[in-house]
């Protein structure tokens, strides 16, 4: 079959400009189709993987998706908080294993500050993996720390925050109250020290500045409320009050903060882990039945599914747009092959004179569409992988979206197969034209330009 391979190749070579444009346009369509598809699926996956390890999120009664979005994804703002005492109430429920408080509302240069407990670093999972420190360590629980005053002002950075501002261990940061607008007040008197930097996860915690609940309260002491309210001698920290030993941690004002008073009044949300997931509905009901202001306990996975359903319209629009792009690509294939078929009338007449039936000529044109389609799809796969490879880091850092390089999913293969079939269908038009032309021209090759 060496001769026929040569024949195909040389025939294609003689029309390489037109054909390479077709291959390129199929390639772009395929790459676009696959990339959109992958972003769709991977966005879903990285959203659900961002909330690993958490069985329930507790917040004030309201919209479940709102709670999920503002608590774990820092999208939107809470309108109400829950009372701090709820933490103990939830903790005391028999099926609850652990509770992590979450306080939000402050920011550091545009990145959200999470006030939480060190438990977060051991309980939360992203992409199925526990959090890992790239450098340093967790801040300490002030009540257990050897030097509680210093522990209060310790801070852990998400990977992206550290990378963005080039922060290293030991750096001192000033956190802003509110979301970072010019009018918001800097807590310039409360510098925090970086003690740990988390490894990249692809989850929202990459964009978080994590401090202790006490640290979060310390920020707010003396702000908006005037002087802090109480002082309990038994729990006061003598060393802090002397001022000398903690001189390195910041201006003397901070020394005035009373650690004993650093008890949160309220939390934005609670992250709850259960002893057994089988008890998730009982736990939910128990939490929602707690006395006091109405609470809500949402299952992150279920709520995420609801969220996807509510944005299905956008997803579908994206799919339709992609399909349109692919269709445009296919039409251009048909058009280009059609035009090139007119240019091949002489060739068709010669082959016809040599005994090729119009049907066989049609088959020849279809075979070419197939190979062109296949070449386009292979190019598309390559473009897609190359694009992912180049964009993966950026998407991960910018949007927390982690894309999976490597083997395309079954859906992607199905898409490609569909595209190949569509290319064949588009190829039917020029093939049929070949059939018609060869019948009409008979033995007389036309005189063309």
């Amino acid at each position: 079959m060496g001769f026929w391979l040569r024949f195909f190749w040389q025939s294609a070579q003689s029309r390489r400009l037109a054909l390479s444009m077709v291959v390129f346009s199929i390639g772009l369509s395929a790459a676009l189709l696959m990339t959109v598809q992958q972003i769709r699926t991977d966005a879903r996956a990285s959203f659900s993987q961002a909330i690993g390890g958490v069985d329930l999120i507790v917040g004030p009664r309201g919209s479940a998706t709102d709670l999920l979005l503002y608590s774990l994804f820092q999208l939107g703002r809470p309108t109400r908080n829950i009372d701090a005492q709820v933490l103990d109430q939830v903790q005391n429920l028999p099926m609850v294993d652990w509770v992590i408080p979450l306080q939000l509302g402050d920011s550091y240069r545009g990145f959200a500050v999470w006030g939480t407990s060190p438990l977060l670093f051991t309980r939360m999972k992203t992409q199925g993996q526990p959090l890992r420190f790239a450098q340093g360590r967790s801040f300490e629980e002030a009540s257990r720390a050897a030097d509680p005053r210093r522990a209060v002002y310790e801070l852990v950075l998400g990977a992206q925050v550290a990378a963005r501002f080039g922060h290293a261990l030991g750096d001192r940061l000033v956190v802003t109250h509110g979301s970072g607008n010019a009018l918001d007040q800097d807590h310039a008197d409360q510098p925090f020290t970086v003690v740990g930097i988390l490894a990249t996860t692809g989850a929202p915690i990459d964009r978080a500045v994590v401090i202790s609940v006490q640290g979060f309260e310390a920020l707010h002491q003396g702000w908006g409320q005037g002087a802090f309210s109480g002082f309990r001698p038994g729990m006061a920290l003598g060393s802090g009050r002397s001022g000398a030993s903690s001189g390195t941690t910041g201006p003397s004002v901070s020394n005035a903060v009373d650690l004993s008073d650093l008890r949160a009044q309220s939390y934005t949300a609670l992250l709850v882990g259960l002893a057994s997931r089988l008890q998730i509905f009982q736990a939910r009901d128990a939490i929602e039945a707690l006395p006091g202001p109405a609470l809500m306990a949402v299952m992150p996975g279920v709520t995420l599914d609801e969220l996807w359903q509510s944005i299905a319209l956008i997803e579908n629009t994206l799919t339709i747009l992609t399909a349109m792009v692919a269709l445009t690509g296919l039409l251009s294939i048909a058009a280009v092959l059609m035009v090139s078929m007119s240019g091949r009338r002489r060739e068709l007449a010669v082959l016809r004179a040599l005994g090729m039936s119009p049907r066989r000529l049609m088959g020849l044109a279809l075979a070419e569409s197939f190979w062109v389609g296949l070449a386009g799809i292979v190019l598309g796969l390559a473009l897609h992988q190359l694009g992912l490879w180049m964009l993966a880091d950026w998407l991960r850092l910018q949007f927390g979206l982690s894309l999976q390089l490597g083997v395309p999913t079954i859906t992607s293969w199905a898409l490609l197969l569909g595209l190949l079939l569509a290319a064949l269908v588009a190829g039917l038009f020029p093939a049929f034209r070949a059939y018609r032309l060869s019948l009409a021209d008979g033995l007389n090759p036309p005189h063309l330009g």
Partner: protein
Amino acid sequence: MPQTSQNVPAFETSSSGPAIRLIDLRFAWPGQTLLLHMPALTLESGRTLFVGGPSGSGKSSLLGLLAGVLQPVEGACWVLGAPLHQLSGPARDALRGAAMGVVFQQFNLLPYLSVIDNVCLPGRLFAARAHQASTQAGSLPAQAEALLRQLDIPTALWQAPAHQLSVGQQQRVAVARAFIGAPRLVIADEPTSALDDQNREVFLRLFLGLAHAQQTTLVMVSHDARMAEAFDQQLWLGAVGGGG
């Protein structure tokens, strides 16, 4: 993908008897008046026929009928013992590929294929042609080379893409392709009209020489009456609608 086909028409093409026999043959393009009427024409095997007449007299249509790309409105068209007027399109195509050579006025070759590949093409498409070439010359390329040598195509051009050749050379390569694999009928439609006088002389001499040497039946259409003498038989077609 085209394959070397063993397509042998479903009838015996007899090598005795006339190569062409037309009986009361009528042809018209769909929806048009009668273009061609041949009450009777017989051409014995191995003979050469010159078809002359003004343009529009149906010369090319006659060749189309003989080659099986056109179908008569009425009448019988026996070519190489096969009733073309009764055969299906694919069967006529197969007969043409296996047993006929065709030369056009111009644009005979696939411009991107090499000269030698162009000449071998009929043998690649029809096993019968390749088999004949092997019997006569040892192999298909061997016969192609022998023909190219006979037709004065310089060796240096054999591997060149066909579009690099002059028009005169291209016409001679087309003749080599028409004769490869010993077809029993070669038909040519104004093969010399793109050539100057000198090239036309050379072409005609080589063309007829090959036909005589291989005892191939030859039908050539031309408006140039000066060449008619060189053929065994002449047929003159009249003006449009002319029945004879």
